[in-house]
């Protein structure tokens, strides 16, 4: 069950990363930084709303919107000028964002651990198979599944989703047909940043907020999207579930080497099926 909570969290984070790669072919190292900024913004908003009992929910929404705005600025002002360039430049640009945002967060919020208490409406937990499962973890699982279903419905059933899928197939063709590809890219990046900020906010009641959580999470998110398939939506979901299970069973089978086992899994997938379990070859 612990594995499933981890999995849903990773899905929330990795889905944004995967969407951006699928549509824009940009591997965004800064996705983890957006996640971290989301966590800090949520903490900040919780401080501002101090006496309100259910202050966590507006704080989480504020954090997600704040990070979405940050993503919009980054895409509009900088990233879009790099689309025509080699991948190396895009990778290094997003890495530069990691450095800048990481230090900016240190500057504003310091290096001490910060934490947010669970919202009172989800405070308790219940007994299952002899272990206590907090209601909050249950909520995370529900939220992850809900995002998966909504995301899939939007992508497969709506006009906007069709445009996004078309852009991921053939950007130039869509451009030639008169669609505003630039707007689609900006929109995707904003949605992806929103998801990163939201997952950063939602993680705060479970984990304390520390500098360095950005580079730690981004590697995990990379593993998830590589296992499932870069750019594949359900692949990311599957990848998250597999990651969570490998990590929790890895601890049982080779204690101390669970990290090794997930990286090894990533390498094996890349060697056998570089486009991932549910992805398609580029």
């Amino acid at each position, binding site marked *: 069950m612990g594995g499933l909570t981890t999995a849903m969290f990773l899905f929330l984070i990795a889905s944004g990363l995967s969407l951006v790669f699928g549509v824009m072919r940009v591997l965004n190292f800064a996705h983890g930084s957006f996640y971290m900024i989301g966590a800090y913004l949520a903490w900040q908003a919780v401080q501002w709303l101090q006496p309100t009992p259910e202050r966590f929910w507006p704080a989480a929404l504020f954090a997600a919107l704040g990070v979405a705005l940050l993503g919009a600025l980054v895409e509009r002002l900088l990233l879009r000028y790099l689309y025509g360039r080699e991948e*190396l430049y895009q990778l290094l640009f997003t890495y530069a964002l990691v450095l800048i945002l990481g230090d900016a967060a240190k500057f504003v919020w310091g290096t001490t651990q910060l934490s947010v208490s669970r919202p009172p409406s989800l405070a308790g937990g219940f007994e299952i198979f002899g272990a206590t499962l907090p209601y909050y973890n249950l909520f995370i699982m529900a939220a992850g599944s809900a995002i998966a279903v909504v995301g899939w419905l939007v992508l497969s059933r709506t006009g906007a989703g069709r445009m996004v899928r078309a852009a991921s197939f053939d950007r130039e063709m869509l451009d030639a047909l008169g669609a505003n590809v630039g707007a689609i890219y900006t929109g995707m990046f904003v949605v992806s940043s929103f998801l990163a900020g939201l997952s950063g906010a939602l993680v705060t009641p479970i984990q304390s907020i520390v500098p360095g959580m950005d580079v730690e999470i981004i590697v995990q998110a990379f593993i998830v999207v590589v296992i499932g398939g*870069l750019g594949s939506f359900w692949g990311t979901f599957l990848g998250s579930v597999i990651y969570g299970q490998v990590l929790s069973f890895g601890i049982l089978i080779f204690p101390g080497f669970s990290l090794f086992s997930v990286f090894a899994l*990533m*390498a094996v997938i890349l060697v056998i099926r570089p486009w991932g379990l549910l992805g398609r070859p580029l």
Partner: protein
Amino acid sequence: MTRRRGAFARHIPWTLIIFLVAFWVPWVGSRYDTFLATQIAIDALFAVSLNLLLGTTGLVSFGHVAYFGVGAYVCAILMKTYGFPFAAAFPAAGIGAAGFALVFGFFCVRLTKIYFAMLTLAFSQIVWAVCFKWNDVTGGDQGLPDIPYPDLDWISAIPGLAELRIGDRFYLLTLLLVAVCLAVLRQIVRSPFGRMLTTIRDNAERAAFIGLNVRAYELAAFVIAGGFAGLAGALFGIFNRGVFADYVFWSKSAEVMIMTILGGMDYFWGPPVGALALVWLNQQTTSYTEYWPFVLGTLLVVLLFAFPGGIVGGLVTGFRFARRRLVPGDA
């Protein structure tokens, strides 16, 4: 982007000149200058080894630090745990790193572009996870402190060098070894083999069409680059007086890549210039502020947007421009 090498850089023995100039650092500069110069020399070798992949062959490796780390650990373990002399441990570090690069590279060169970058990243994280957890051999998260200095008494036996401190002696040894490695790498890049790598970078399909075994060439470049990175790592472990798992974490790969881009990856001497600039900048910045990554990130953004050719690229462009203006008719 033009990838033509400047004609003026072709016939000057830069390695020898730089060696002869840098040789005097212990006498001219302070102890701290010698310390910085040692770091620059090691970083320069590491960055040039990466550039054999990045600039020469066009392979974006995001896990080059793995081979640096393997070299550092091999040298440190042999010298500290088994008491091997440096003369044996140093080449062993290069061979060990090249061996890892052969195994990992065998799989990596089968992939292209972003997948190549991801797989190199995955392998380097595997190396990191093993170094971090394998307490018996690598010291785990405690690392391997107190690596002995190599026996450098023979340097003192040379007339005129008897007065040097141990740090200065190690600097001279590092400088000599790095200079030899750079000279070898320079020859590799200039050789027909190096030209083939550049052909692959410019158009891999065409290279395959004229009969090149593209994967074999890429693998050879990967192994050579890994081996030299291992040698740099071996020197770094001794210089740093210890090897720790942190040095193998993936963000270090990004740092050396920034060094390479900052100097200019289209030029052989770009990465060493980048190493010099970055170490100097780091030292200048950290005396004012602790937010060095912020400065580095901002610098990187400016670089990517304004000077994609790096420092050397910018200098060469400026030089050509000046020559056109000053000498009319000379293209």
